[in-house]
């Protein structure tokens, strides 16, 4: 029977969530000597043992196609998760079409993500000062730079030193040489004076820390059987367990931060999914890293006489200023790539080249119709064939069938390319999550209700993406294909679709206008910290995971120092 039981032991720290933010906190804190209990809402996962590396889609159901349960396909590392999690709904306010991705497994989204690892730049921390929109972070690039160094040296990121504006270089492993189509796209970009440089991905091109180097099978999304890409279990959690200081509890669905009469956190209550019983972990310090929205949900659900609107929420800003990334895509067909000598073009699991934002000076001079920038992600080549890859041939051939059609498909394979813009969203007051007043999930926990709107800046940015991608494809002698129009806001993604949600418990200098202080410590509760993307004040075009890791590292070091100074205990 379900019953409330308290574990007598008191840990130094309880960490909620085992993804990039929870993983780095567990790693740094256990190495500093803290006794840590890590809670994960999903099951155990070890990609090195459970990866579907080298398997073939023709041996999978429906050739490995995506389903509601596995949107990224049968072999995707996300065993339980997606935009719908069974028994764990969320709701949208009228007029909102938000999608909330969750990964219920050890390591969370780090098992599946694209490994793109871009540092935010100096401008990105002070966007309000630069263009008067949004808000400034309470920290600068220089504050975070040492932690970007540490993060890159631990997780392993390849790249090249470029010295470009607001695109800081890092501690890079050697970058892999570009594929053929990437060299063609770079030459087309050069004509248009759009910079195209080696990408920066958390994939090992050399062995470090006992992890093997990449063997270039391109299927990082299936998890890596030799741990050559960054994932929280293989890089943060398993090494942390070797210290003897880490206890991991899976199937532990955090419900509430338990707060004492003194207003300090006492631990975390969770539902043990296997028994449906409620368990409380006692700890001197609580670190939330459940993912941006889930962290806000736990804070809002942690109501007490001391915190009637949820712990840490005296500002009323928990859940507010939720952001995702702006996305818009164009696909292309480059005849120059047709019928080339067959070669293995796999490479790493992701792009070897990308285009960082290049119009900072034009924006500063007031010459652009929107604020903030985007980077361009590219795809193409003779990749692993799956369903959908051979559709639409009539766009090039006009139709046909028979022996000639078969010959033509063979020639066309490898000539398709794709361009995806990933841009900055400016936080706005219409985009937030709150507790739905009537709905609960199967664990009896009130669920989130979302509100979301793009502003004109994001929509005009999507238009600029479309125009740019068409120009590049045309410059390469190709044809472009897009369904984006003014009527559908230039194909802008749905909120949440790019799976870069950040904000919802932002950090700041002032307790009235922020939830967390400059060390991601709750203003209202000094032994409560957040190490996922909830503290983000803005959402630069740089993908969030590297910044989550660096910021979480900085917060964890601060926690360790404060413990030594005895500033945190109740």
């Amino acid at each position: 029977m379900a019953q409330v039981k308290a574990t007598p032991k008191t840990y130094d720290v309880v960490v909620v969530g085992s993804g990039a933010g929870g993983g780095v906190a567990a790693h740094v804190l256990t190495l500093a000597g803290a006794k840590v209990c890590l809670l994960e809402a999903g099951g155990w996962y070890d990609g090195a043992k459970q990866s579907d590396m080298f398997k073939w889609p023709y041996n999978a159901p429906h050739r490995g196609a995506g389903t509601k349960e596995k949107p990224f396909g049968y072999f995707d590392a996300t065993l339980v998760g997606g935009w719908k999690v069974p028994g764990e709904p969320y709701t949208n306010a009228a007029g909102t079409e938000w999608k909330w991705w969750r990964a219920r497994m050890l390591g969370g989204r780090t098992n599946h993500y694209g490994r793109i690892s871009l540092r935010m730049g100096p401008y990105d921390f002070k966007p309000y000062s630069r263009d008067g929109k949004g808000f400034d972070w309470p920290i600068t690039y220089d504050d975070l730079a040492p932690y970007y160094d540490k993060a890159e040296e631990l997780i392993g990121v390849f790249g090249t030193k470029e010295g470009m504006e607001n695109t800081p270089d890092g501690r890079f492993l050697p970058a892999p040489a570009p594929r053929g189509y990437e060299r063609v796209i770079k030459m087309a970009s050069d004509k248009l004076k759009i910079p195209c440089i080696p990408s920066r991905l958390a994939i090992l091109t050399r062995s470090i820390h006992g992890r093997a180097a990449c063997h270039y099978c391109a299927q990082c999304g299936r998890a890596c059987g030799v741990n050559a890409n960054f994932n929280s279990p293989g890089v943060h959690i398993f090494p942390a367990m070797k210290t003897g200081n880490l206890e991991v509890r899976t199937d532990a669905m955090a419900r509430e931060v338990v707060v004492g009469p003194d207003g300090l956190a006492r631990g975390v209550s969770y539902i043990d999914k296997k028994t449906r019983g409620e368990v409380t972990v006692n700890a001197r310090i609580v670190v939330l890293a459940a993912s941006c929205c889930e962290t806000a949900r736990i804070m809002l659900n942690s109501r007490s006489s001391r915190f009637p609107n949820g712990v840490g929420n005296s500002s009323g800003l928990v859940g507010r200023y939720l952001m995702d990334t702006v996305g818009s895509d164009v696909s292309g067909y480059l005849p120059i790539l047709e019928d080339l000598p067959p070669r293995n073009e796999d490479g790493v699991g992701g792009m070897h080249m990308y285009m960082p934002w290049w119009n900072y000076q034009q924006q500063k001079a007031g010459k652009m119709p929107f604020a903030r920038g985007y980077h361009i992600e590219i795809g193409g080549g003779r990749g692993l064939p799956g369903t959908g890859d051979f559709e639409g041939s009539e766009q090039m051939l006009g139709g046909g069938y028979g022996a000639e059609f078969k010959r033509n498909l063979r020639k066309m394979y490898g000539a398709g390319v794709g361009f995806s813009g990933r841009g900055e969203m400016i936080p706005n007051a219409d985009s937030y999550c709150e507790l739905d007043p009537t709905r609960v999930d199967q664990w009896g926990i009130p669920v989130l209700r979302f509100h979301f709107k793009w502003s004109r800046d994001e929509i005009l940015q999507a238009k600029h993406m479309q125009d740019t991608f068409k120009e590049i494809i045309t410059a390469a002698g190709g044809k472009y294909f897009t369904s984006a129009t003014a009527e559908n806001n230039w194909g802008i993604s749905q909120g949440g679709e790019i799976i870069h949600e950040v904000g919802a418990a932002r950090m700041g200098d002032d307790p009235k206008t922020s939830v967390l202080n400059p060390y991601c410590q709750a203003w209202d509760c000094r032994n409560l910290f957040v190490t996922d993307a909830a503290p983000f004040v803005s959402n630069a075009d740089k993908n969030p995971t590297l910044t989550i890791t660096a910021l979480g590292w900085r917060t964890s070091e601060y926690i360790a120092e404060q413990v030594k100074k005895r500033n945190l205990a109740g």
Partner: protein
Amino acid sequence: MGDRMPDRNGVSRRDLFQIIGAAPALAAAATGASAAQNHEHAAAAYKRKVFDDHQWRTVEVLCDLILPADEHSGSATQAGVPEFIDDWLDFRKQEDGDDDLAAEILGGLAWLDRETARLFSKTFAAAAPDQQKKILDRIAWPERAAAEDRPWAAFFSRIRDLTADGFYSSKAGIADLPYLGNTAVPEWKGCDPAVWAEIERRMKNGYRGLGGEVKPWNG
């Protein structure tokens, strides 16, 4: 960029390739996956979900007209494409919550028979090759199709795409392309010089491809 540091921390490339070279075989043994599970070798074992016997025969004939055997590979039916399409129609019904795709395909198959009966007093599958060709030539190029044939041209575009998807994602289709990856590569060297030389030739001289003409690149 191409140089390799000796691997530190005790993981040698040789060990790695001994491990991962064996991985697919081990994984197959562990999951019970075998040739019997690969439906290209087990067509007889496939249980149809959508097509009846006559529709099945029609799909086999139609798929092989779309992708016949040639010097590179066998036909669509030999690669299990009818099984793929039957399964895919059922799968989409489950995933999409409607059977619009199945309706479009079954409706198109019905028209093929209706039209072949009207013109040649036969089913499509039983018609002579030149009779089948007469029908398909009306619907295989949508821009040229007569206005009254447009639904059937749309049907044909759909089943042509399904056939191409099913064939080129099969084991036989992957070997035909060929796709040479999904395997461990000891050293990544980037674009092969022979491939790049060909691209550069095209940039210099221009190139007329299936997807249009590429003018010479002048920097």
